[in-house]
C-alpha cells in the first residue's frame, strides 16, 4: 500500500469522525483548519472531544491497517493547534514507522 493510499484512509477516518460533530459532510471539512481554535480559523473542538477523536481514530486505523500505533499524550498536545492536514500527514508517518504500507 502506498503512503498516499494510507493517507486517503486516514483522512477518511478523521473527517468521517469529525463530520457528524460539526454537522458537515466529510468532504466539506476544510483540512487547513486547526482542531483547537474557534471558528473561523479552526473547528473549536473541546479538549475532551479532541482526545476522544484521537482514541477512536487510533482504534480504527489499527483495525483497518492491521498496525499498532499509539498517539502519545505529547504528540496529541503538539497537534491540537495544528491543522487537520498536518495531523493526517504525521499520522501517516506513525503508520509507516510501524511498518504498515511497506
Amino acid at each position, binding site marked *: 500500500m502506498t*503512503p498516499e493510499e*494510507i493517507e486517503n484512509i486516514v483522512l477518511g477516518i478523521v473527517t468521517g469522525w469529525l463530520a457528524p460533530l460539526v454537522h458537515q459532510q466529510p468532504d466539506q471539512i476544510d483540512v487547513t483548519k486547526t482542531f483547537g481554535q474557534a*471558528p473561523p480559523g479552526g473547528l473549536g473542538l473541546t479538549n475532551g472531544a479532541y482526545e476522544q477523536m484521537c482514541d477512536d481514530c487510533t482504534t480504527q486505523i489499527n483495525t483497518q491497517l492491521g498496525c499498532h500505533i499509539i498517539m502519545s499524550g505529547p504528540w496529541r498536545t503538539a497537534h491540537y493547534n495544528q491543522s487537520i492536514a498536518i495531523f493526517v500527514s504525521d499520522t501517516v508517518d506513525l503508520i509507516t514507522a*510501524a511498518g*504498515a504500507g511497506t
Partner: protein
Amino acid sequence: MNRIGTAARLLGCAAFCLAAQPAAAGFQPSPKDVCVVSTGGQRVDIDRLAAKLLDANQITSWQLDTTGSISTQTQINAVHLHDFCKNTGHCDSGVVKKLIVARVELEQFLKSIPGKDDENSEKHDFEISVKPGESQSLDLVSDFLEGRTVITCTAPIGGSVPPTRDAGGNLTQTPAASAPNPDTAAAPPQAEPQSQSPVSAVGTAGGDWLPSLAQFVVRAKVDDLAYGTDSPNYKGLSSATLGFDANAVSHADTYTASGVVGYQVNRIYYGDPGDWTDIVPYVGYNLKKVETNPHPKSGNIDTMTAGLLFDTLFRAGFYQEIKAYPQFMKSYQDGSETLSGTLTYIPEPAIPILAAPYDIGDLVYVMAQPSFNLGYQQIMTAGENKALLGVGDYTRYGPGLDFYVYGFPGSVLEKFSAAASYRYFFNDGLSLHQFGNLQSSISYTPFGQQNVSITFKYVVGRDLAALVSEKEYTLGIGIKF
C-alpha cells in the same frame, strides 16, 4: 618543464572544474518534510517549509527571539520580512546574515520549481501554480508566503513510490473515503514481529522537567496563564501593565502595576494517552497608588496574590475536565488576608453541539458548554476592609452554561459572533442564599477581521465578587492594530 606543464594543466583544470561545477544544491527540502495532504492533493505547507528552511540554515528559536518562545507565524515572518530583526529587537547577533542567506535559498528553491505546463514538470517533486483569482508579482517569496501561489507536491510524501491519483490527478475525499470499504482497501500489512510493538510518537511537549525561561508567563489575569505564546488565543489576551500618570491640573501622580507571573510546568501525562494535567503556580501584584496633597483617603489598591492554576482532563466513560484556582490574597492597603478559590467541572463528551461548534444550515455555528462551579472564600483577617466583612466566608456551588454562536464563513452572518455565560449559585454565606449572573455579548466585525469590532454587552444578575445587583448595557467599538 613537462612537470610544470602538467601542474599548470591540473591547476587550470581544477579552476575550470570548480567554475563549471553547478552551484551548491542549496535548499532542497524533501516532499516528506514539507508536504501535507489537502482536499486538492498534497501541497507544501508554509509553516513546515519555513521551519525546515530555518533548520537547514541552523537558525534556532533562541536566535530569533532571545526568550526562545516563538510561534510558527514568527518563523514565517523571520523568513518573509527583511526588517524582522530590526522590528522585534529580539534577534541574536549573527542571525540577520543567516536570514538573508535563507531568503536567497528560498528564492532559488522557488525558482527551480516548474509550472504545470513546463516541460520538465514530470521530473520534479513539486509544481508551482498561481491561485485562482490571484496574480503573481515579481517577488516569488512573497507570492508564496502570502498565499498567492501554491506548490503542489507531485511526489508522495511518504517515500519514492509513485503516487496513485484519481483521473483528475487529485487526492479526493469522497464520502466512500470517509468509511473505507474493507474489501477495496489493501490487505493489512504483515508487520514484522518487532513492528507489532506499539509505535508511539514522541512529541515536543512534556517529559522534560528542567525549568525553561520560555515557561515563565506574564499575563494580566490568572485565567490567561494557561495560554502559551503559541496558542491561537494568545493574540486576544490582555497584557500586564505598569504605568505612571501625572495630572498637572489636580497635581496628582498615579502609579499603577497589574499582572500575574506564572510558571507553566510541563504538561503531566498519566494513565491513558488522553489524560493530562496542567499546573501553573503564580504570583500576582495589583497596585494603584494616587499621590496628592492632601493624601487621598480611598482609592488606593496594593494587593499581592499567590496561587495555583490547575487543569486536568481525564476519561471516565467520556472525557471530563476539572479546573481549579486556589488563591491567597493579601492587601497591604487595608491589611486583609483571604483564602479563596474556584473549581469548575466541565463534561466534554464527543456529542454534537457540546463537543464543537455545530453548523446549522451553513449560516451559523452554535456550541454549548455546561459546567458545575464551586467557589469559596475564607477571611483570615478582614483588616479595615468593611466590604469584605459584608460578604463574609462563603461556599457557593451551582450549574453554569456557556453558549457560543459564530457566523458561518461566506454567509450573511459571517461577521457576527455572540456569547452568553450563565451561572447560578446556591450560597451558604451571610446573605443571598441563591443568585444568578448572566453575561452576554454580540460582536460585529465590519471588515471581516478582528482589528475593528462593534460589541454590545448585556450583564444582569449579581456581581460574583461583591454580590451587588447589576444590570448593564454596553455598546462599544474596539480598535486593535
